[in-house]
Each structure stands twice: as C-alpha cells, then as structure tokens.
C-alpha cells in the first residue's frame, strides 16, 4: 500500500496536478508517527503508511489549503469525515486539495502492544487477523483485537465521503458498531458511580491541551479559552473555572460537529477516555433528534444549529438515562 501511495504521489507531483503531499512520517520511533507535508518527490523517501498511522491529517489541510498550489491528501475513512465537516464549515478550500481515499483496517495501539510485554518495537505489519510486530528481539505475533485501538475496534465506517480518487477498496458504513456500549454502561450506573468514574479520570488531566490541539473540530483561529473577552482565560489557579470546566465546554463546543474520530483519546498522555464525552453527545443527538453523523452530508444542517418545533423538552433528562 505504502509503495503504491508513494508511486501515485510521485505521478501527481510530476504532472503538476499537485505541488505538495500530505501524509505521515516516522518520528524518533517507528510507532511515533506524525502527519507531515512533503514538498517534492525526493522528500517522499520518508513517507510512511502502516498500522501505526492513526493520526487524522484533515486538520492540517486548513492551513495547507491557504497556501499556494494544490496539495495531495491521503485520507482514511475517519479523516474524510473530519475533512468533509471542515469543508462544511468553510475552513478548507476544496479546490486546493486533491483527495485520495485509502482504506484503513484498524490501527494498532502501542500502549496495548506494550501491555502485552512487547518492547523495542521497530515496525508493524498486518497478517490476516494478527499484527506482526518487528522488535529488536525478533518478530512477535499479536492478535488484532488485542492490539487494535479502541476506536478501531468500534469502527463506525470504513466508507469515505468526498474523495477525488480511491486507492484500494471502498468500505461500508458499519451499522453494527458497538461504539456507544461504554457510554450506555456509564449511563446505567448511579450518579455517584458516574461522578467517581469521571472524577477519577478527569483528575488526571494535566491541561496539556493535546486533545484540543489534535481535534479536527477544535480548529478555532483562537480558542475560547484564550479569548480575553470570554472571561474564562484564567491561567493562574488550579481551581480556576477553566481548569474545572475545560472538558465539558470543549465537548459542548464540538457537539454536533465531532465526527467521532477518537483522536482526543489517542493523544491524551494521561489516557483519559475523552472520546466518551463526545460520544455521549452523539448518542444523545441520535436518540433525541434523529441519526446524525457529522461530515456525512454536506447539505444537512448540523443539530446544534437546527431545531424542530416539537423537539423534546430539557426535562426529558430527568426521565431518561441514568439510574435513579
């Protein structure tokens, strides 16, 4: 796949249809992969696409599409939803991006691999239902369901939206996805249990802003938490408003726009399951206002800027969900 992608990128660079390529490259370690822009064919030696390439590149296209010339972007299905949502918000100039859809069969989670006692990872490849991990101690085999990241195990869609060209096979929307199971499990707890759960999770937050920086829905030119007119940009005390409410507000701001790509949880250095907050909103929206997938439909108004005359009343919260 990687070779085919590089070849196609070279072709497009050569015939002048694009002037840059958006992809991934290795960091210090093989699993430490970050999105990268390649300015010419020579730089593509560093281009990598393997089972560690989980990063969502759509956000980078906001700035890239403001530059001269067209950029080639390889988008996985979940990246393409984020990309489409950003298009809807007029954040990306579609004319400046050439999109090639690439399939993604589930990315590996390095933490899960490490938890299995596999260390010194040098590379990874897919083989049927297993990952073959190349390490300094030799090859190790690990079953995919044990090593795949949570968001991939509950993948919502292997189908792209809005691509110019497909490489590999186009997938399907997965209606069977169990992605709301964990949310439902929490909903079934008592409020006290839920409070303890979240307190346990959120108290680990170090406010590093990684979730905000990676999130393709958190693309504000300037975040509300950095807005002096919002009166919440308090940087001092640990008990400040910002400290306590950051995650609720962030989840609310991306509600209806979050495509559920799961990047927030992937990058969290404290492993807080932040995606559950977003999924809670998605689940509520689906249940209360009808099925909605951000990015899936360019013309549909997103739920927070829409209403019907007979929407449910906020009091419905007292009746549904939760154990009381």
């Amino acid at each position, binding site marked *: 796949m990687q070779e085919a992608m590089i070849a196609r990128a070279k072709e497009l660079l050569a015939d002048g249809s694009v002037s840059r390529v958006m992809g991934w490259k290795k960091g210090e370690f093989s699993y430490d992969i970050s999105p990268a822009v390649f300015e010419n064919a020579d730089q593509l030696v560093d281009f990598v696409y393997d089972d560690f390439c989980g990063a969502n590149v759509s956000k980078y296209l906001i700035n890239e599409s403001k530059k001269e010339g067209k950029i080639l972007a390889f988008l996985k299905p979940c990246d393409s939803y984020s990309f489409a949502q950003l298009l809807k*918000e007029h954040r990306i100039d579609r004319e400046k991006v050439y999109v090639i859809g690439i399939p993604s069969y589930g990315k590996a989670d390095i933490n899960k691999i490490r938890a299995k006692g596999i260390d010194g990872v040098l590379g990874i490849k897919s083989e049927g239902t297993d990952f073959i991990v190349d390490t300094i101690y030799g090859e190790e085999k690990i079953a995919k369901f044990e090593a795949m990241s949570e968001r991939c195990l509950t993948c919502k869609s292997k189908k792209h939206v809005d691509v110019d060209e497909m490489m590999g096979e186009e997938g399907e929307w997965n209606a069977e996805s169990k992605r709301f199971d964990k949310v439902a499990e929490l909903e079934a707890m008592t409020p006290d249990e839920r409070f303890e759960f979240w307190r346990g999770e959120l108290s680990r937050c170090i406010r590093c802003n990684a979730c905000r920086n990676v999130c393709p829905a958190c*693309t504000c030119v300037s975040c509300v938490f950095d*807005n002096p007119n*919002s*009166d919440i940009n308090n940087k001092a005390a640990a008990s400040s408003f910002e400290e306590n409410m950051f995650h609720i507000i962030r989840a609310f701001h991306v509600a209806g726009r979050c495509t559920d790509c799961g990047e927030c949880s992937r990058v969290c250095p404290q492993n807080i399951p932040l995606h559950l907050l977003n999924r809670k909103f998605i689940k509520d929206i689906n249940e209360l206002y009808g099925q909605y997938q951000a990015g899936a439909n360019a013309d549909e108004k997103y739920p927070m*800027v829409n209403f019907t005359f007979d929407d449910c009343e906020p009091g419905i919260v007292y009746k549904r969900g939760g154990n009381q």
Partner: protein
Amino acid sequence: MQRIGVFVCHCGTNIAATVDVKKVAETLLQEPGVVYATDYQYMCSEAGQNMIKDAIKAQNLTGVVICSCSPRMHEATFRKAVAAVGMNPYMLEVANIREQCSWIHKNIEEATEKAIILGRAAVAKVHLNAPLIAGQTPVTKRALVIGGGIAGIQCALDIADAGYQVDIVEKEPTVGGKMTKIDKTFPTLDCSSCILTPKMVDVAQNENIKIYSYSEVESVKGFVGNFTVGIKRKARYVKEDICTGCGLCTEKCPQKKVPNDYNLGLDTKRAIYIPFAQAVPKVATIDADYCTMLKTGKCGVCSKICTAGAIDYTQQDEHLEEQYGAIVVATGYNPIKLDAFDEFAYSQSPDVVTSLEFERLMSASGPNGGHLVRPSDHKEPKTIVFVQCVGSRSTVECGKPYCSKICCMYTCKHAMLCREKYPDTEVYVFYIDVRTPGKNYDEFYRRAVEEYDVHYIKGMVGKVCPEGDKLKVQASDLLTNEQLHIDADMVVLAAAIEADKSARPLATLLTASMDTNDFFTEAHAKLRPVESPTAGVFLAGCAQGPKDIPETVTQAGACASKVIGLLAKDHLVGNPCVAHSDEMMCNGCSTCANVCPYGAITYETKDFSRRKDGTLMRRVASVNPAVCQGCGCCTVACPSGAMDLYGFSTKQIMSEVDAICK
C-alpha cells in the same frame, strides 16, 4: 476604573418597608469603583432625577446603578436622565429590588441582603459597560409591493395615499390577482369585478404608484430602510408604452389553441392576448410558448396589423435595480393540484371541477358568458354535489394540515347562486364542519339552508365514478347513519389553498422565515401580525395564511400603516445592543449565520497578511447592526467566542454570575 454612583429608591414604602435602603446604599458604597451612594424617596420623580444628574456632574461619575423597580418600568426614564447631562445612556444599569425583591419577601434582613447582592451584580456589570451609540441609517422613502392582487393593490393605494412612492411587482401581465377570476363575493353577493376594477384603475392612475407587470423579483440586498431589489421584467414582445390595448391583434392572431389561464384552461385564447377586458395595464402580451413567429420566425400577423407598431419580436428580458425602504409580500395563494385525489375523479371527468373553475363557469366573463353548463356536453346540470375540505385539514401527504378558511363560505355562495339562477337544480353540500365566523357569515349560511333549500349533509364523499353521462357519487351521511348514492351531473371540489409557489424562493431572497406550509411567519402571532421577523418586510394577504377578501383588505391596510410609519422616518435609530464579531478570532465557519433569524450576518474574505507570515486570506463574519435585533443566539453558537453582544456581553453576564454566587 469606573466611577460609579449608586442610587437606591424607597419607592415610598414599596421598597423601604422591606428593604433597609440606607444599609443597601452604605454597603454598596464599599464596592470597588463605587464613589457615591445615596437613597431617596422617589428616584423616578423629577427631584430624584435631578439628584442623579447633579451627582453625575459633582462626582464625575462614569457609570450609574439605580436600585429601584423593574428596568422594564423606568430604565428608559433613567437613561434619558443621565443622557441629559452628557453620560452615555448605556452606562446605566437598574437593579430590580422592587418586583423581584421587596414585593416578594417579608423578612427585612433577607430582603436587604438580596437587594445588596442584586446591587452588587449591577455594579459588577456597570464596570464592564461601554458607551454604546445607536446607529442611524437613512430610509429610502419608497415601498415595494410584491404581488398585485387585492392585498397588494390595497396596500399600494394606502401607502401612495400617504404621499409615498410605491412600486408593484406582479408576475402576471395584469394586476388584479385571484379576485379578477371570482364571480360574486360573499356574504353580500356583489360582483367581484365591479368592486375590484375601480381599484385597479386607481392603481394605474395614481402618480405615486408604478406597476411592473409581467415581472419578478430576482434579488434582494440590504436591510430595513435600504433595500436594493433586482427586478426582472419578462419580455412580453409588446412595447408597453406604445400598445394602446385596442385588442385587434388578439382577434387576428392565427394561433387559437392556447389554453386560457384566465379561465383556468376551460377555454382557449390566442398566442397574443390581453387577459381580460379590464386588465391593468391594458397591454397585449405574446405567449412565447405558442407564438408561431417566435418559434419558427414565420407569421408576424400581429406586427402587420398593429397600427401603433407596438410589436417587438426581438424584445429581451430586462433587469432593473431599484431602491426601497420597505417591502410588502403579497404573493397570494393557489388552489392545490388535485391529481392525487383519484377518488373524486377530477382528472377523469371534465364535469368534476374545482371551486375556482366553477367560479369561472358561473361568471359572465367566463367561457360560457355566465350560463352554467357542464364542460363535457354543455348541458345544464340538474344535480350538483359540492365537496368541502378537499385536501384541507388532511395530514396525509397529498393534503394540507390546516383549514383553508374560505371554502365554507364560497361553497355556500356557489350553492346559493345555483339555486337562485337555476331553481330546478338539486344542490348537495357535503361538509365536515361549517365554519362561518365573520360578520353576517352564519346568517348567510343559514339563508342557503333555510331559504334556498340547499341540502347540507354532514359527511364526506368517499368516491365519484363517471358512469355514462352521470357522476355516481357515494357518500356518507353521518347524522342519519347511512350511505348515500347520488347521480350527479357535476361535482365541485373545494380544493385546499396553498401559498403561491413563488413564495418559498422569495422568502429565501428576503431571509424572511416561513412555516412548514410555506406561509410567511409574522413577527408575533398576536401583537405584530403584519410584520415579518425580518425588519422592513411586511406581510399582506394569503402569503401569511389563508384569508378571505375582507380580512385581506384589512390586513393590507394595517400593513400599509406599518409601512407608512417606517417611511415617515428620516432615519432609523437602531438598538445598539447588537452582536458584533471579533474578526481576529472568527473562524468563518457560518455557525452563527445558521442560527441568526434575521440574516444579519454576512461573510467576507479579508486579508490578514502580516509581513512574517506571507499572505493570509480569511473568511470572517460581520454583523449588520441595522438588521441585528440582539437576541444573542449567535454568541452561544460561536465556538471561539468571537461573537459577542453589546449590552449583554459574555464578560458582563459572567461578572453578574460571580457577584451573585460570591
């Protein structure tokens, strides 16, 4: 730092009896920024107001907090007072310590404590207040009326009467609308043309009114007082200013097989036509779909015959742009299409007609000169069945969920006229309810039943089957609990009425809101019934909802008075408490525009280039303060907080929250 003065009102004993006003003033004086605090018997009295004015001057106050009755009561009074001594009126806040404190609490200690907290919140807010200046925009003293039916005509006449210029844009070749097609009007049975034609002539002759017939609105820019409207004048292939309306061409045109819209296709007209004798403007129009000359280039009869030389086959659509201060929407209605109602055999038998078609069949200007005969064989019908609520009050797909309102009365009128003109005709009316609220309406209906012996049957027609030259009508009679079978000669269907198809795209142009039935929504259902929520856009007639002629004329008049009220102003003073966007923080994501009910937000791509970053173009929002009404919906929708509201800024409300929760 602000220098704030606090003024606590006793309101006689209304406040002072339960709130320790002295303590409130003393405590608030300790608040940061408060340099003066006092209390007085009646702050709103002249003496009280002077006290405020004097303190502002003596203490060099930059902000004022009044602890008194509800701001809904005296905020305006106090704002005026502070403005009189040169303070910006928006530097004042009112803490409501009467309606929301002294009047609801009995315990003096509690009430005093609450009054202090409310005062503190107001002080905290004033700290963040900024002088606001209401914007002024000039008003173009001309109105546009879209639609030239009775609503548009009446409204235009009333506005013109007040001395303002009015343009009417009508999509048909003549003004007059549906009322020209109607034979008689209920409940007086006077002739529709006889009362409408003089008004049409008035419109044509009024110096203040200009008619753009055979024209459409294609674009609307601007806002209240300052609309720029693009109008398309469709090519009629006849020079309007030269045609004398003699009608010779309409007699000589060899293309005779053109369905006559005026008679709803019940007969034919020529390819060049004047819709009817009293048309305004009385100018011929060529139907390009049928004209042989325009289609094949071979004919030219009308051109040869026209002594005035008015025919111009090369005419093109013309596009104009005009300025208006106010826009009236009077786009009217149409009966719904009945193709989906198979059970009534409308598309199977020519003798099943809609009420509007029946109106033409009865009219002296109709296809048969007013002699009622069946369209199929031109025989006089002996049994006529009227069916009400065809498509009205229907929640299934092909119908409309609302009551069309006019059908009960016109059906009653039709039934009565039939019995009067042709006494040997049996007339049945099937009804679900007979709805006759209106002056002399129920009396009219009772006359039909009692004097004219119309058979009113509570029930509905289930099906109509053409059989031979009869229409077999099967219906229920719910009162006798039996099924009726009637051999009718004609069936008349009271089709539901719906908003004209042009209304929906027009609403988009105007950014005026519509309900799910494509009727324009009013700014307030009870208190602002002729205004659209979009400032400067007004509603008349059936564009707003089904209504009959008297109601339409009433509404058109009310609408005109609202328009006159607007045009009479030289300047519009806006509400300064409007939204504004910080373009440095704006993402241009359109979220705010999506929730704005007024279409006040527009986007432009601006250059944010700085030397070190190279070129940077960004799409940013800007709010038109003349259009924004200050609801603040956009401020919450905006994820980055770029959007804020003057007078109720995020910071201000936050500071009130902090002051209260301290």
